[in-house]
């Protein structure tokens, strides 16, 4: 799954050191940029994508043909205004849209598969910082991320405190909870239980662990929504029929929707990348990286922070954001926090939300 499509590629010149103690030689990042970098390079905004996201934040996805995943937020005249800012979005290390990941060819000419080193959120950010170095951007006007992207934004603020003047974290957390890990484990087990997974060595074969990957996506997708949102959208309505079939077809609309989400996902995502990236998220614990005290993670930061949560997000609930806010307060950082009301759970940050637009625009400017 190595980039058959156009994206800028940055070859990281040095071996990328990893938290595991290993290093990744010859790694590359695929990235997109929007807008123009100012002569003094002061207007760069790095946007960090979520688990299954990619660099196509504001341009058509080459595989699905769908608009960019945050096109409503990023573009000319939009809250993150590409007439003013130079927006950078890169596919993270470990993913499968052109950046080096388990599907990439290693030095022996074979795909890494499960020989790919286990990576962390901080390793992803190491890759992003290397890209910023390559682009000559010493200090970002802002780093912005939702969900896993928010973890990257926090990791950048904690480990490279000079690199961003503003840090915007939406619907995210400073550590993965047991519940978060549990859901990810369900997904990983679904993939690894698929016979076609073949211990991760499926790249040369015709069969892919698509069934397992689809189930993983279905389980995860439920966590991105809210009960209220699901009920509003589907209720218990039946799909293309008047009565229950007394069988195991997708009788209910919600079943049909999840199957569609699952199968669509296998077209654009690599199962091994899903294993590696969910692992990276599960390992994420910013306090642990800094001696057990979250406040210490931000001790050197002079950045302005803004955290946003959604009242129906049960994956990364408001309490997780508050936890970060308290740590930032304890270090005297400039921090804003708001819990926005939205019916759609964790995914609310990707959907139409005027209040979110105003917060993002106001904070970034």
């Amino acid at each position, binding site marked *: 799954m190595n980039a058959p499509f156009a994206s800028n590629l940055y070859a990281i010149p040095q071996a990328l050191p990893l938290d595991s103690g290993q290093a990744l030689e010859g790694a590359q990042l695929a990235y997109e940029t929007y807008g123009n970098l100012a002569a003094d390079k002061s207007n760069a905004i790095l946007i960090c994508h979520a688990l299954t996201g990619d660099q196509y934040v504001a341009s058509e996805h080459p595989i699905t043909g769908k608009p960019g995943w945050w096109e409503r937020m990023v573009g000319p005249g939009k809250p993150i205004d590409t007439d003013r800012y130079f927006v950078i979005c890169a596919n993270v290390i470990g993913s499968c849209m052109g950046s080096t990941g388990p599907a990439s060819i290693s030095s022996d000419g074979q795909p890494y598969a499960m020989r790919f080193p286990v990576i962390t959120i901080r390793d992803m950010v190491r890759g992003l910082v290397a890209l910023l170095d390559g682009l000559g951007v010493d200090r970002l006007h802002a780093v912005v991320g939702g969900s896993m992207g928010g973890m990257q934004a926090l990791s950048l603020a904690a480990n490279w405190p000079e690199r961003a003047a503003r840090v915007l974290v939406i619907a995210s957390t400073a550590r993965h909870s047991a519940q978060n890990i549990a859901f990810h484990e369900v997904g990983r087990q679904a993939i690894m239980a698929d016979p076609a997974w073949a211990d991760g060595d499926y790249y040369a074969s015709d069969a892919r662990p698509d069934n397992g990957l689809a189930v993983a996506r279905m389980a995860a997708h439920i966590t991105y929504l809210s009960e209220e949102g699901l009920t509003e959208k589907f209720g218990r309505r039946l799909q293309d029929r008047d009565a229950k079939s007394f069988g195991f077809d997708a009788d209910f609309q919600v079943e049909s929707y999840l199957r569609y989400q699952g199968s669509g996902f296998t077209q654009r995502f690599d199962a091994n990348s899903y294993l590696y990236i969910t692992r990276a998220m599960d390992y994420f614990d910013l306090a642990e990286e800094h001696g057990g005290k979250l406040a210490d993670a931000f001790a050197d930061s002079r950045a*302005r922070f803004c955290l946003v949560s959604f009242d129906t997000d049960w994956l990364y609930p408001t309490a997780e954001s508050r936890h970060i*806010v308290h740590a930032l*307060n*304890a270090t005297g950082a*400039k921090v*804003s926090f*708001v819990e*926005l009301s939205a019916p759609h759970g964790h995914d609310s940050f990707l959907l139409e939300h005027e209040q979110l637009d*105003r917060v993002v625009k106001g*904070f970034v400017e």
Partner: protein
Amino acid sequence: MTSRPSTLRPDLAAIAAHVAPGSRVLDIGCGDGALMAELESESRCDARGMELDGALVERCVARGLSVVQGDANVDLADYPDKAFDFAVLSQTLQTATRPDAMLDELLRVADKAFVSFPNFAHWRTRAALMFGGRMPVTRALPVSWYETQNIHHVTVEDFRDLARAKGAKIERSWFFANERAISPVGANWRAEFAVFELSR
């Protein structure tokens, strides 16, 4: 302390005029951030806010202010000692679960505190209670007893007593009626609003 005309509410204007330029300020119950914006733009203060109402927080953030959505009754405890030069509690003391504990917290997180509140001993309130026999609904206290957020009605004299009991020193005080500053003489019955500056 300029003579520039202010669009701030009179109690906030009095506070804004007496916060030293460049100070670190925590505005508790900061509303739409009017005072914070003034302090940041006119006095180069490092202002932080706390506000319960998410819609108001969003407006603050959208205007570039650092405001945390939270409940002062609980969340003040997360701020370190003497993190600020000034704490501001405008029109919020009477909504606190425990105003006495809130006063302690103000003087813990900041060297000095400004507290403003509607004076329940204002003659109009007294008259309404005395002659109407009902909980007053006045210009300063415009909401019926069952829907008011003001759960502890306080008077100028009550507040002086509380400050004394808490070992807080009253540095300065200002009183307002009809949107104008009035003299401290007879403030307990003449003032609709009071502002106190405290230290410990």
